[in-house]
C-alpha cells in the first residue's frame, strides 16, 4: 500500500475497513444460506468440507478410541465391564420390549394393525459408530457417524440405538453422515401414545444429559396423557424421515396451562444422548453397501 506511514492512524483505519469487509462477508454467507434453504449454494461446499474432514474425524476417533477405553479400565476390570455391557444391552432390549407391549396389544386388537406389525419387523439396519459430537456452544445437537452413502446411508433416514429413537440423517457424504438428534430444538417427530394411540408432535428442548427432555404436544387436547405412557414414532410416508413404531421415550409429567390450547407432556427419552456410541441407521430392505446390513426384529 502506498500510504504506509509510521503511526497508528492509517493502520487502524485499515483494520476497521477489513472488519467491515469481513462482517459483510459473514452476513452475505448467512443470508445466502438462510434464504436459499435446501437449495443453498453452500450445500456443495458443506459436503465438500465433509468429505475431506469426515475421514480425518474418523481417523482421529479411531486413534483416540483406546484412550476412552483406558479411562474405563481404571474403574473396573475388562471382563466385568464386558458383563455389564452385555447385561445393560439385554436390559434395554427387554425394557423396550416391555415398553412397546401395550402398543402391540392395542395394535393387535385393531383389525388392520396386524399387517403393519408384521411389516415393522422387517427393518434393516446399518450399524455405525458416533465419531464426533457437535459442541453445545453451537446450540444444535448433532453428531457425525462413520457410515455414509457408500454404506447405503442417505438423507432423511431414521437413526436408532438399543434403547430407542436417536434422530435422523440430515446430511451424508460418502464415508460419514450428520445426524440431528431428537433433543435438538429444530427436531420435530410425529409421536403416538402407546396406551391410546393418540398422536402428537415430539419436540426437542436443546439440552441433553440428565435434564434432557422432550416436549409432546397432542393433536387432540381433550386427551390426557398419563405418567408412564410410552411414546413411539407414528411414522411418515415411506418411512421418511422416521419409520413407525420406534420407542421414543416415556411420559414423565403433564403440563397444562389455560393459555395453551393443547396439553404438553414432558417426555424422558429412552436413548442416553450423552453416551451415544453404536447406533443403527434404518435402511430400505435389500440395501447393499460396504458394510453388512443387519436385519432387525429377528425374534419372532
Amino acid at each position, binding site marked *: 500500500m502506498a500510504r504506509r506511514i509510521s503511526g497508528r492512524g492509517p493502520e487502524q483505519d*485499515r*483494520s476497521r475497513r*477489513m*472488519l467491515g469487509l*469481513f*462482517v459483510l*462477508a*459473514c*452476513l*452475505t*454467507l*448467512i443470508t*445466502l*444460506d*438462510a434464504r436459499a434453504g435446501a437449495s*443453498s449454494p*453452500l450445500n456443495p*461446499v*458443506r459436503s465438500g*468440507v*465433509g468429505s475431506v*474432514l*469426515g475421514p*480425518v*474425524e474418523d481417523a*482421529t*476417533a479411531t486413534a*483416540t478410541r483406546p*484412550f*476412552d477405553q483406558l*479411562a474405563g479400565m481404571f474403574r473396573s476390570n475388562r471382563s466385568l465391564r464386558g458383563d455389564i455391557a452385555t447385561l445393560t444391552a439385554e436390559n434395554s432390549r427387554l425394557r423396550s420390549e416391555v415398553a412397546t407391549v401395550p402398543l402391540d396389544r392395542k395394535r393387535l386388537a385393531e383389525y388392520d394393525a396386524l399387517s403393519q406389525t408384521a411389516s415393522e419387523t422387517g427393518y434393516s439396519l446399518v450399524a455405525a459408530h458416533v*465419531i*464426533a*459430537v*457437535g*459442541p*453445545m*456452544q*453451537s*446450540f*444444535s*445437537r*448433532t*453428531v*457425525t457417524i462413520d457410515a455414509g452413502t457408500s454404506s447405503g446411508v442417505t438423507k432423511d433416514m431414521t437413526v436408532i440405538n438399543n434403547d430407542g429413537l436417536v434422530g435422523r440423517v*440430515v*446430511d451424508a*457424504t460418502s464415508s*460419514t453422515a*450428520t445426524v*440431528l438428534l431428537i433433543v*435438538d*430444538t*429444530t427436531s420435530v417427530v410425529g409421536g403416538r401414545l402407546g396406551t391410546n394411540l393418540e398422536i402428537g408432535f415430539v419436540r426437542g*428442548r*436443546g*439440552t*441433553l*444429559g440428565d435434564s434432557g427432555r422432550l416436549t409432546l404436544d397432542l393433536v387432540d387436547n381433550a386427551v390426557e396423557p398419563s405418567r408412564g405412557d410410552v411414546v413411539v414414532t407414528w411414522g411418515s410416508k415411506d418411512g421418511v424421515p422416521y419409520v413407525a413404531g420406534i420407542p421414543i421415550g416415556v411420559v414423565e409429567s403433564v403440563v397444562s396451562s389455560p393459555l395453551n390450547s393443547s396439553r404438553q407432556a414432558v417426555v424422558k427419552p429412552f436413548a442416553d444422548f*450423552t453416551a451415544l456410541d453404536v447406533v443403527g441407521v434404518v435402511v430400505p430392505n435389500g440395501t447393499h453397501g460396504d458394510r453388512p446390513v443387519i436385519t432387525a426384529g429377528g425374534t419372532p
Partner: protein
Amino acid sequence: MSAPRDAVLAVVVALAVVFQAVVFRFISIDGVVPNLALIVVVVAAIARGPEFGMITGFCAGLLTDLAPPADHLAGRWALALVLVGFLVGRVRQDARSSPLMAVAVVGAASFIGTSVFALSGVVLGDGALPIGSMLQVIVISVLWDLMLAPFAVPALLRLFDEARPGRLVR
C-alpha cells in the same frame, strides 16, 4: 506470507476444529467442550494483530460452520470469530504484557465469541435456546477456555511467532 507457513497454520486450524468435535466429546460438560478454534484465533490475533486475527477468525469460523456435525447457518461462527480476532488484535499489547493477561483475554474473547454466536441464533431464529440455558452454556464454555488457556496459549504463541513472516533469523 509464504505458502508452507500458511499450510502449517491451516493445518492447526483444521486440527482444532476436528479435535473439539472428536476428542473433547469424552470430557464434555452437558455437551459443552473447550473451544479450541476460538483459542487459536485469539492467539493468532495476539501474535500478529487484528488483521491476521480476522483472517484466521474467518477461516476457522467458516470451517466450524461447515465441518460435519455442524447444522446451523453457515457464517455464524465466522462472524463471531472475526469479531474476536478484531477485538483481541486491538488489545494485543496488553495481552502480551503478562501470561495472566493473555489468559484473561482468552476468557473475555470466549465470552464475546460464544455470546455473539448465541445472539445471532436468537436474531435468525436458528437453534436458539431459552436465555437461561444459553447463559449456562456460555459460562461453562468460558470456564473451559480459561482452563485450557494456560496450556494452549504459550504453545500456540510460540508456533505463531516462529511462523511469523519476515522474522529475522537468530
